[in-house]
Every structure is written in structure tokens, then in C-alpha cells.
């Protein structure tokens, strides 16, 4: 075991060497004291075989109590310090992971599932912590106990020690050997459990098909089979796990048996005293737990190493989108240009030969069918995705050379899915800078004011699980207000009003008109009604710009846009249920 991942924790551990030293010191003292009390017992019993005063018995009893009390103090310290240390390191590591996650870009989140990432920040983190806390503590404790007790046993009788250690070593072997098998069979049980889960999942999600084809009895049979297999695999597991614990007990018993028989004979032969005989038995019993712990710790370390590997995979991911020698630009006017832009997700081309110049203050609309690349195009602007160099410009600067903070402060981006944090409405709108005044003004423009007035706590109403549930339209308007509140030079609405009904949308847009006049605006939409007043309408299909012009021009052209226009008129008629002709 080279443990490359756990090794990487060495510096963090070294930084805490004081705590580590104190904890291990407490551990050493705990162990030392714990081997002392059987020694007292030994003397007490030896004295009893002769003759002794009551005072002396009191002394022995008092001594045992004092030792155990002292041991308790150190044991308490040991636990608090060593387990606390692991919690402290977990705390740091988890912060690091989150910090790194905030640096990773959209592409990372497209390829890594959130559930998976969360599991690393919690479950895997626990596994690592177990190595750092109990792992270190029990390893050290096992070693210390082993050394200290065996030393005491050797002091009593080297011969007896050797004789009793043989079955003890067998315990370690047993734990190691059977432990692995138990582990393997346990994995098999888990695999079957997953299988059974998949079966249930499949059955429940296909409930309609199962019923439609009257497959209930057949499905029950299928499940019964998986159920039976699960029990069978458990039987295999129990058969051997059931041996493990009694087996350990048996081997430990062999040690005690040796003490009883050989030790007893040695007492008779006056090679050891009766007190030593009793104390020896106590020492042997003290080794019981460390022997079991050894196998357990090995398992712990293996698991922790694998988990830490998964955590390091996050920390080692290189943030693609970051400042690299940025130009000293702090303000932007908002002129945007795409120059012969190609863009691909891996091998899959998404955008091809996009050239578009948008003067500062004008409004450009982008329409096209789902998957034509509209969203990708506007995502390149605030560098949610990174464009190739020398293709996307703001005020004549390549966006890749602009400071991220400047660029993103200048772009007010409202994404398709309006994401709200579970915080108050005010906090959500004033997400960027917390200005309450601007937040209010923005809410007014986004037609959110009326809704806010309807909530008991107004703008301080919490949204999300522990607050009000907003409708899709309300969410979108909140997200819009959030973008407006940053007073951006460039406003991007990426199909951001799809859940708002057409009339409200028109109200919002007319309210926005004044705002938009002074800013460069990108309107991405499916709806003709949204885009018809734009200075320029761009139609995209399969990653290319296929039509461009103003509304009237495009309708007259009779291309894709004109067809879209015709369809939407029809849809509206169907929706309202009017008859034609």
C-alpha cells in the first residue's frame, strides 16, 4: 500500500503537529497507566495469599481507583484531541472542495453530476475523516497497548508470553484473511441489492406498461427470483461472517486456556506468583480489542484512500475559465462582435462561422429551433463557456483578455432556467451587490412589484423550500430583476420569459424599453411576439445564422422566420379556440 492520496494530507497533518503530538502523548500516557492497574491487582492478590492489613487493601483499592481516574482524564484528552483533529481537517478539506467547486466552469458541471459531487463532499469526506480520526487513534493505541502489555507479560514470564501470543497472532490472521472474504461476499450482497433496486425502479417507473399488459404476476415472479438470490448471497455471507466472531472468541479463549493450564502449573511450581497469574490473564484480555481493531483499521484505510482519490479528482480539476494576463479594463460601453466564430462541445460542432456585430445600445434578437446553438452563443459572452481566442469581442477587446470581474459585471445574464437561492426575494434580486434601492427599482421594471405586495413579508419573503413557492413566471421575473439590478451594459435574456404569459411579457418588454435603449440587449426567444421590435433579428439553424434583418423584412422573405410567424398566429388561435373562416 503506497497510499498516494493519503500521503498528500501530510502537510495538513504537519501543520497540526502540536495537536497531533498532544493527542498521541495523551494516548501514550493512557496506555501506560492502563497497564499499571493490573500490576496493583497482582500485588494485592499476592499479599492476600500471605497476610495483609486492611489498611493495605484500602491502599490498593485507592490506588486502582486513582489510576483509572487518571487514565480516564488522559483518555478523554486523547479522544477530544485526536478525533477533534480529524474533524478540523475535515472542515478545512470540505471548505477547500467547495472553494474549488466555485472556480470550476459550466463545462465541468455538464460532465459531472451534482449528486455525485455532493456524495464526495459528504460520504467520501466521512471516509477520509475516519482514517484521520479513529484510524490514527486506533492504530497508535493498538501499537502502544501491544508494546506495553507484552512488555508487562514478558516481565511476568517470557515463556508464558510466547505460548499465549501464538493464538493471538492467529486472531490477526483470521481477521485479515476472513475479513477480506467477508468484504468480498458483502460486496456481492450489495451488488444483488443494487440489482433488486434496479428491478423495483424499473417496475415502478413502468407501472402503466406493467398494468396494461397485465404483467403483475410475472413481475412478482421476477422480483421473487431476485429476492431469493439476495437471501442466498446473504447466506453465503453469514456462513463465513458467522464464523469470524465466534472464531476470534475461540482463539482468545485458547490464550486464556494456556494461562489457566500452563500458568497454573507455573504457580504450583512457584515460577510465578498467584497475583502474577491473575494479572497475566488481565493483560491478555487487554489485547482482545486491539487485535480486532487491526483488521478494521486496514479496511478503514483502504476505503479512505479510495474516497480521498475521488475528492482529489475535484481538487485537481483545472478551472478552465479564469483570468490570464487580463487587460487593465474596468468599464465597458457594450459593443459586441462575433468574428467567424466556431464552437464545439468536444467533437460535436455547435456553432459555425458566426459573424455578428452589435453596436452599443442596440437590441438584437436570436430565434431558431431548439438545439440550434442560440444559448451557446450568448453563453460565450460572459464566458460561461470559453470561446476560442480572437473570436468574441466586447468594445474591441477579446473577452478572454478582459478581467472576468469586469466582464461579468458588465453583462446582465438571465438564463433559461431561472435559478433562485433559498433566501429572501430581496437577497435574490440584490445578489451581486446588495443595493436595496436598485433592487426595488429593478423589481418594478420586471413587473414583480405586484406579486411582492401580495406576500405577507413583502420583499423579505423567503423563497424555496422554507418559504413561498413561486410560479414559473414569478421566478423568471425575479431572475430578470436580479440582472437589471446590476445595471449592466449588456443585457442577455436567454429565453428568459418563456414561463410568463404573452400579455405579461409584452408589459415587461414595454417597461424594459427605456432600460434597453441605453444598453446592448440580446433577446433569445422562440416567440415572435418577443423579438418583433428588435433592431436586428437573427435566425439560427444548426449552428449557423441563416436569416437576418428586421421583422418586416424577414416576414416578407418567406423563410424560416416567416413560417414561425405564421405558426404562432395559428397556435394562438387554437389556444383561444376561435374558429377560422
Amino acid at each position, binding site marked *: 500500500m503506497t497510499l498516494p492520496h493519503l500521503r498528500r494530507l501530510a502537510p495538513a497533518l504537519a501543520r497540526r503537529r502540536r495537536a497531533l503530538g498532544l493527542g498521541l502523548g495523551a494516548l501514550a500516557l493512557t496506555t501506560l497507566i492502563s497497564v499499571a492497574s493490573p500490576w496493583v491487582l497482582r500485588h494485592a492478590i499476592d499479599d492476600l495469599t500471605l497476610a495483609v492489613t486492611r489498611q493495605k487493601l484500602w491502599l490498593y483499592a485507592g490506588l486502582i481507583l486513582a489510576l483509572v481516574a487518571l487514565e480516564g482524564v488522559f483518555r478523554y484528552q486523547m479522544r477530544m484531541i485526536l478525533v477533534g483533529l480529524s474533524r478540523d481537517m475535515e472542515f478545512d478539506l470540505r471548505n477547500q472542495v467547495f472553494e474549488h467547486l*466555485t472556480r470550476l466552469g459550466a463545462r465541468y458541471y455538464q460532465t459531472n453530476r451534482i449528486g455525485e459531487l455532493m456524495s464526495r463532499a459528504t460520504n467520501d469526506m466521512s471516509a477520509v475523516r475516519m482514517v484521520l480520526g479513529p484510524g490514527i487513534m486506533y492504530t497508535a493505541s493498538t501499537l502502544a497497548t501491544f508494546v506495553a502489555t507484552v512488555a508487562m507479560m514478558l516481565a511476568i514470564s517470557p515463556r508464558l508470553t510466547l505460548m499465549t501470543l501464538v493464538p493471538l497472532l492467529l486472531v490477526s490472521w483470521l481477521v485479515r484473511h476472513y475479513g477480506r472474504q467477508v468484504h468480498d461476499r458483502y460486496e456481492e450482497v450489495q451488488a444483488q441489492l443494487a440489482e433488486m433496486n434496479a428491478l423495483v425502479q424499473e417496475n415502478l417507473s413502468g407501472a402503466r406498461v406493467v398494468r396494461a399488459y397485465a404483467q403483475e404476476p410475472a413481475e412478482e415472479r421476477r422480483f421473487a427470483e431476485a429476492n431469493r438470490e439476495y437471501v442466498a448471497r446473504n447466506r453465503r455471507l453469514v456462513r463465513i461472517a458467522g464464523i469470524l466472531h465466534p472464531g476470534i472468541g475461540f482463539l482468545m479463549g485458547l490464550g486464556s486456556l494456556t494461562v*489457566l493450564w500452563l500458568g497454573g502449573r507455573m504457580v504450583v511450581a512457584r515460577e510465578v506468583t498467584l497475583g502474577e497469574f491473575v494479572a497475566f490473564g488481565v493483560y491478555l484480555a487487554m489485547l482482545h480489542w486491539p487485535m480486532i481493531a487491526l483488521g478494521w483499521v486496514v479496511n478503514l484505510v483502504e476505503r479512505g484512500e479510495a474516497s480521498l482519490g475521488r475528492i482529489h479528482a475535484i481538487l485537481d480539476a483545472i478551472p478552465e475559465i479564469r483570468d490570464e494576463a487580463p487587460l487593465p479594463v474596468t468599464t465597458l460601453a457594450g459593443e459586441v462582435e462575433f468574428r467567424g466564430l466556431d464552437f464545439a462541445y468536444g467533437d460535436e460542432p455547435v456553432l459555425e462561422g458566426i459573424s455578428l456585430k452589435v453596436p452599443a445600445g442596440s437590441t438584437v434578437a436570436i430565434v431558431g429551433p431548439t438545439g440550434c446553438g442560440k444559448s451557446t452563443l450568448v453563453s460565450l459572452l460572459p464566458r460561461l463557456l470559453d470561446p476560442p481566442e480572437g473570436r468574441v469581442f466586447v468594445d474591441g477587446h477579446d473577452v478572454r483578455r478582459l478581467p472576468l470581474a469586469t466582464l461579468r459585471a458588465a453583462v446582465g445574464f438571465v438564463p433559461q432556467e431561472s435559478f433562485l437561492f433559498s433566501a429572501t426575494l430581496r437577497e435574490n434580486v440584490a445578489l*451581486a451587490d446588495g443595493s436595496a434601492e436598485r433592487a426595488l427599482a429593478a423589481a418594478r421594471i420586471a413587473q414583480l412589484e405586484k406579486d411582492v405586495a401580495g406576500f405577507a413579508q413583502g420583499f423579505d419573503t423567503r423563497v424555496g423550500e422554507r418559504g413561498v413557492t413561486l410560479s414559473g413566471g414569478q421566478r423568471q421575473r425575479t431572475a430578470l430583476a436580479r440582472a437589471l439590478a446590476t445595471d449592466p451594459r449588456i443585457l442577455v435574456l436567454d429565453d428568459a420569459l418563456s414561463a410568463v404569459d404573452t400579455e405579461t411579457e409584452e408589459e415587461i418588454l414595454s417597461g424594459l424599453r427605456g432600460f434597453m435603449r441605453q444598453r446592448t440587449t440580446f433577446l433569445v426567444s422562440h416567440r415572435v411576439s418577443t423579438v418583433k421590435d428588435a433592431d436586428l433579428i437573427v435566425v439560427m439553424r444548426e449552428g449557423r445564422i441563416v436569416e437576418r434583418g428586421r421583422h418586416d423584412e424577414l416576414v416578407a422573405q418567406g423563410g424560416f422566420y416567416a413560417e414561425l410567424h405564421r405558426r404562432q398566429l395559428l397556435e394562438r388561435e387554437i389556444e383561444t379556440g376561435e374558429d377560422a373562416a
Partner: protein
Amino acid sequence: MSQPDDDALAPGRTDFGLLRRLLGYLRPHATAVAVSFLLIVALAGVDLVGPYLTKVAIDQHITTGDAAGLASVAGLYLLAMLVSFGLRFAQTYIMQMTGQRIMQDMRRDIYAHLQRLHVGYFDKNPVGRLMTRVTTDVDAVNELFTSGVVTVFGDLFTLLGIMAVMLALDWRLALVSFAVIPLFFLLTDWFRRGARQSFRETRKWVARINAFLQENLSGMSVLQLYRREAGNRAAFAEVNRSHYDANMRAIFYYAVFYPVIELLAAVATALILIYGGAQVLAGGLTLGALVAFIQYSERFWRPISDLSEKFNVLQAAMAASERIFGLLDTAPLVVSPERAARPPQVTGHVSFDDVWFQYEKPPTGSGGATQPTPADNGPRSEVGFTPPSGAGGLGGAAQPPPENYVLSEISFTVDSGKSVALVGATGAGKTSIISLLMRFYDVQRGRVAVDGTDVREWDLERLRSSMALVLQDVHLFSGTIASNIRLGSEIGMERVRAAAEAVAAHRFIERLPKGYDTEVTERGSTLSVGQKQLLSFARALAHDPRVLILDEATSSVDTETEQLIQAALKLLMKGRTSIVIAHRLSTVQNVDEILVLHKGRIRERGTHQELLARRGMYWKLYELQYKDQELAAGGRAEATASA
């Protein structure tokens, strides 16, 4: 079904009631359970032998110098160990396996019940949650059998045994060493309360961390766009810090508990030493008995400190079994009637007679409404919510607010072997109509009948097996291609193959690595959308239904596959009553009647040509949905120009 049906009075479900039902699951395994208990008792007895033999060795052999006699004591000791090993293995094995079998029964019952529940139940209960019932919850109950209750009994026997032996050895000394027990219970109680409280705290913060991560990772791009990284890092560090603090408090309880337990044990040892030592000196107690006492008292503490942990297991198991029984007690709403119609021949005549339907029954709050109703609904009449009393119509006078109904006044008939297409915008009620025909749900008013018999009077299995449902989103079961065509029905390989050939699925199946025996995965990712469609047609055809119910897929496939699908469809519908949610031009052109739905009502009906001539809603839908297909058939329009 093994679970007794005596839980009719569901409210006031007590722990005792739960326990009784759980015991019901033990009954079939009574022998194994009894044996296991006997073994536990025996084990507790055998485990007492060790210290006693130590006493005998010391008193009768070691102190008397009888080295030879030690051998026999050692022999007995070895015997006791062997017996203990054997008993312990047998006990573990039997109890664990019994637990497994009980869980097997329980899972079987839950699964079977899930098969019986109506489709509407799954609308409200997410699959993930139901899965937890079958797996996690059952496992929690299993803990009760394997490590919880059973070992508690074992521990109790051990305790009682030790106490008995100690009392027998020297009752005064025994009582002296028991003096610590009350302190011990106080400590355990303090620990249990503290640990549970702090454990709850840590759980709470773990949940907070999870929620925070879930939210922030999902909204990462928003976070970055608005440059909130630093702020949210700080917020995360705060949650993380609270989690750390809560854990440190939890560590405290453990760090105190174990040392204090040892201290109490040491107090007991000290007491034995002082009192017992004095007895030994006075000659009232042998030295061996003293040593045995010390050994017994050491064994005394372990089981007691475990007891509190077992209590937690017990609670978790109780909570889990409550959830499980809650599921088992959910009555299926759609079931076959007592004397169900099971006609030998089904002709496939389908009729809807003034059908009204809504998914959720509105709250029938009598008097002061306890459930909040949307303010704009106005006063509502109660009469309309009464379930239909058989056939016939209610007068138009007492109509409920129509906005709750996804279907209203639906009447149509399809003669045996004829075909009907349902068209309309999304949400017009097409899917609801086919769901009612399959009796996934029951209507509120009117009746749905097959062969003149109300579907509610049919035997469910007979009704459904005379129909075949083909959905847009093809659901594949893990298994082979063949098993996905035949499902669990007894259909020979010949018929599977014939069905596949008939719908032109045979060709692509043959090309798969193992033909009909190729394994398909859960989501069928190895197959294309078109292939899955053909496969589901083969499935329907192999079951040779009298009524075909089809929700045509909208997803576009390549021209060749499209032609295959159209040909297969024609064949599939031939000679069967067919009800199709149509998305294909060829389908609407070929059916006997088209029903145009709008907001849950039938708006227009007729053939394709008739409806086009009317230039009404159908005409518009045609312009919108079907006209392209006509154009596309001629040649693919391509995006060309780039300015």
C-alpha cells in the same frame, strides 16, 4: 397474503400494534426463532463457565499445589470453549437467516402490494421514495431481528446469569459489587440523552450542508455570473463550522462516557477488593472466588453499555415498520369487482358515454372549509362531486366548476375493428382518454364500456389483457429482446419471431450481436428511438390484443425507419379496434374517425377529408402539425444561406 387484515382502525397505531404485526411475520419461522432463543440461553450459561473454572483451578489445584488436577480443569475449559463456539455460530447463523427470510417475505408483500396499487398512486409518490420502502426500511426492520431485540435478550440472559452466579458464590459480596449499578444507569441515561441530542444536531447540520451544496452546485453559473463566489464560500464555511461544532459536542459525550464507565467498573473492582479481601483474610471467602468475582464484574458492564445503543436500533426499526405498514395499508382504488365480468370472447367494441373526469378529487370540505381553496374559485356546489351512481346522467343543473375536469361530456363509440384518432393540442385530454379506457383511473361521471360492459364491472386482468398499450416513451425491462417482446406472458419463440417479422423489427434484431437474446439495458440505450418503437409494436402484436391503444411518438426518425414504422402501424391496426393519439399524417388519413379535442371536450369529429373541408380547428392543427410531414416527404428542406 400473510399479513392479517386486522388493522382497519389505522389511526392510533401504537408501538404495540406495530410490534404485533411484526410478530406476525415471525410466525412462519416460529421453530427457528424458538431454537435461536434456546441457543441464546444456553450460550449465556456456557459463557459463565470460564471464570468459575478459574476459581476452581485456583482454589482446588493451584493453591493446593495439585498441578496434575489442572489438566482436567483445562480440559473442561476447552470443552466449554468449543461448545460456546459451536452454539454461537449456530445461533448467529439461524437468527441471521431467519431475519433474511422474514425480510424476504416482507419485501415480497410490499412488492406485490405495489403491483396492485392504482396508477394514480404513482402520480403522487415518487419512485425514489417507494424504493426506500422496499430496501432501506426493510433493512432497518431487519436490524431489529439480527442485532437489536435478539441480542438484547442475549445480553439480558448473560446479565441475569452473572448476577445469579455472583449471588451464589457470595451473596454479600455480590450485593456490594452491585452497588455501582444505579450510578451506571444514571450515567447511561445521561449519555443516551446527550448523545442522541447531539446526534440529532449533527444530522441536522449534515442535512444543511447537503442542501447548501445541492443549491449552490445547481446554481453555480448564476453564482459565478453575479460574482458571489467569495460570499457563498464564507456562507458555506459558516454552515461547515456549525457542523464541526455540533460534532465536537457529540465527541464530548463519547469522550466522557467510556472513561467514566471504566471508572465505575474500577469502583466495583475496588469494592470487591476491599470487602472481598477482608473476607478472604477472615477466611470467609476463597481467593479463587475473589478472582472469579473480579472477572465476572468485568463482564458485567459490556452488555449494559450496549443496551442504550440497541434502543436506538429499536426506534429506527419501529419508524421504518410504521412506514412499511402505512404502504401496505394503502387500499388500491382500482380493483376488480366482486363478481367480475370475464367473457370468453372479446369483440372490442368501445364506448364512452358522457364521461367526466379529473385526476384529483377536489376537497369536499363540508361546512367550514378546512382545506384552503383558491380564492378565485368562488362558491362551489357540493352536489356535483358525488360519485356516479351507476349509469345515466345527472341533470345539467348541478354542474361542478368545469375547470377541474380534464375531460367533460366525452361521448363516442368505436365499433369492433374500427379505428379512431385523437388529435388536439398538448393538455387537450388525449392521454386521459386512453388512461380511462385501460382503467388506470376511474371516471367521476358517465361510463366507459368495452363490449357494452362498464370497465368497472370487468375483471381487471381480463380487460387489460384484451388490450395492448403502446406508449410514446417505450419502456424496456432489463432482459433480452425476446423477453421484452413476450414480457411475462407465455408466448413461444415462434410467435415472438413472427411478430417481430411482421413489424419489420426482425431485420435489426438479427443484426444485433446475439439476436433475440441480446441483453437490453434499463433505458435501452443500445437501441435507437426508432428501433425501440418497432420493438414495442412487436410486443403489442405478439400479445394479439382486441383493442390497440397507441400514443404515437413525436420524435423524428430517419426516413427509412419512418416508412417501416408506418407500414408496421398499418398492419398492427388491421382488424383491431384502434384508438390512436395521432402525430402522423398517414395515421390521421387512414382512421375511420378523428376526434378533435380541445380543453377536455370533443370539438370536432369526422374523417380527415371532412374535417379539412370544414376549415375549423382540425384544419389549423393540420397546418401546424401535419403539413410539414407532407412537405418533408417530398424532399428535405435544408438550411442553406448564411449571410
